[in-house]
């Protein structure tokens, strides 16, 4: 078997295995979100289905599948059906460019070169930003097509929110890009080789914080869950969705959670690299998994602690605080990199 054929087979296996693993992970993350929400609130969370209640997500899926699929009478039916997938698919695609282990000839599997990434794409960062922008369409279209006032308000809020936060996010990422001198995730991780003080969150602490806040907005979690805003807009753009269509939205939200956690750890926390070089005997995918879990937990903790901003406050934070700060961070990084490098 020649090397290209082996690479093709590996690629197919990776492309199948990665979504499956994410789906399994998401099923348990949904369970953990409910369990941990209970813990944060002094409750016990789900306990009935399975040991420690851990099959709760599967029970939820069965419930959602057995529910009636309602489509509002005066909605735009084609768009209404399409909207969940516009959110769902881009969420998965980002995982293709994220490395989960060493890339470029070091690793071997059955004597062939094995890259721990599905696609070593040179402009991975741009792809990530672009796919994030596409997902907004899903939210906006879902809100618009439902023919409901609450949905429309939710969709509009989501649109405005994502646009203003994507700018800050983009500018804060450019700092990392300058330091790694590349837009490829593989190079970014390689740029953070060594012990944990080589990771980018130390020089890029401001950019990292901005990126974290912006991802909260990107994920529609508190304090920026205005698009859903249960207390104000019932369920925002999801108001008219029911059954498995609603389930797909929820699923996409949690896939996004995993992906964004992966991106944060890749950009600022060394990706698959161990915090100390002596711990390198533990393989890269496990380190990435641990980091993703840590960030998922952090996102949950934030979600169950803090309040929601008002719409105009959110916009003013995005435009008046985060955007200038991220530009400043970019300028300082550019000067330092050009002087030092």
């Amino acid at each position, binding site marked *: 078997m020649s090397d290209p054929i082996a690479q093709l087979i590996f690629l197919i296996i990776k492309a199948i295995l990665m979504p499956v693993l994410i789906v399994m992970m998401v099923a348990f993350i949904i369970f953990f979100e409910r369990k*941990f929400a*209970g*813990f*944060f*609130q*002094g*409750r*016990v969370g789900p*306990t009935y289905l399975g040991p420690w209640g851990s099959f709760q997500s599967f029970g939820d899926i069965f419930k959602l599948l057995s529910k009636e699929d309602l489509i509002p009478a005066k909605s735009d039916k084609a768009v209404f059906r399409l909207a969940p997938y516009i959110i769902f698919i881009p969420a998965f695609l980002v995982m293709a460019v994220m490395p989960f282990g060493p890339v470029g000839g070091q690793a071997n599997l059955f004597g062939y070169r094995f890259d721990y990434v599905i696609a070593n794409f040179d402009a991975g960062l741009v792809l990530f930003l672009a796919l994030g922008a596409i997902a907004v369409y899903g939210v906006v279209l879902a809100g618009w097509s439902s023919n409901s006032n609450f949905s429309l308000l939710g969709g509009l809020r989501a649109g405005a929110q994502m646009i203003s936060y994507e700018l800050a996010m983009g500018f804060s990422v450019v700092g990392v890009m300058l330091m790694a001198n590349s837009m490829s995730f593989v190079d970014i991780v390689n740029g953070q080789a060594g012990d944990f003080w080589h990771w980018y969150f130390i020089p890029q602490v401001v950019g990292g914080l901005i990126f974290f806040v912006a991802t909260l907005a990107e994920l529609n979690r508190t304090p920026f869950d205005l698009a859903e805003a249960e207390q104000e807009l019932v369920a925002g753009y999801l108001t008219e969705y029911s059954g498995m269509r609603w389930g797909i939205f929820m699923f996409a939200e949690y896939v996004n959670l995993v992906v964004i956690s992966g991106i944060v750890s890749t950009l600022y926390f060394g990706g698959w690299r161990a915090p100390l070089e002596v711990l390198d005997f533990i393989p890269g995918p496990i380190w990435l998994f641990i980091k993703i879990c840590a960030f998922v937990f952090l996102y949950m*903790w*934030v979600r*169950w*602690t*803090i309040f929601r901003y008002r719409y105009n406050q959110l916009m003013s934070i995005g435009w008046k605080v985060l955007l200038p700060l991220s530009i400043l961070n970019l300028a300082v990084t550019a000067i330092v990199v050009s002087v030092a490098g």
Partner: protein
Amino acid sequence: MGLKDVVKKAAFVDILRGMSVTGTYFVVDKVTVEYPKEKLQTYPRFRGAQALLTDPATGDTKCVACMLCATICPSQCISIVGEQTPDGRSHPATFDLDLTRCIFCGFCEEVCPVAAIVMTRQYELATYDKNDCLLDKEKLIANQVNAHKELYALTEGAAPAAVRPASADGNAGSHGR
């Protein structure tokens, strides 16, 4: 705004403090009572579904069909038909209590002159059949196993001579159905 405030704000002190609270709750013991598996003990004054107490001497209910409970009931959920036993005592022929109407105010227990009807600690009243909520005399008497222990003590301490005054019969006659 002083420098200290700016530093505090930039370091997210307020939000970290909130997160420390939720973080504490994450690890401390949970207060949830997992209801069907574990149940709370009610207090002696708790007002659950009613029961009719029986007289240990005769084995029959203590109720004398005086109609006080049926009259005071704000939701009019008690209906009694009185009769005379061969030995001349007043006695309820039927005693029906509609739990779907009952508001558990406890007035029936409070006005009963012979401590026959009592509120119990029985609060698990959910049922699939509405007819289960219509308590007749047998069901009410059977329910006395749930009565608060304290109320048994009360009835035993009461002087038995004063339990059945003559006026009870007269009122029952004039106000009975």
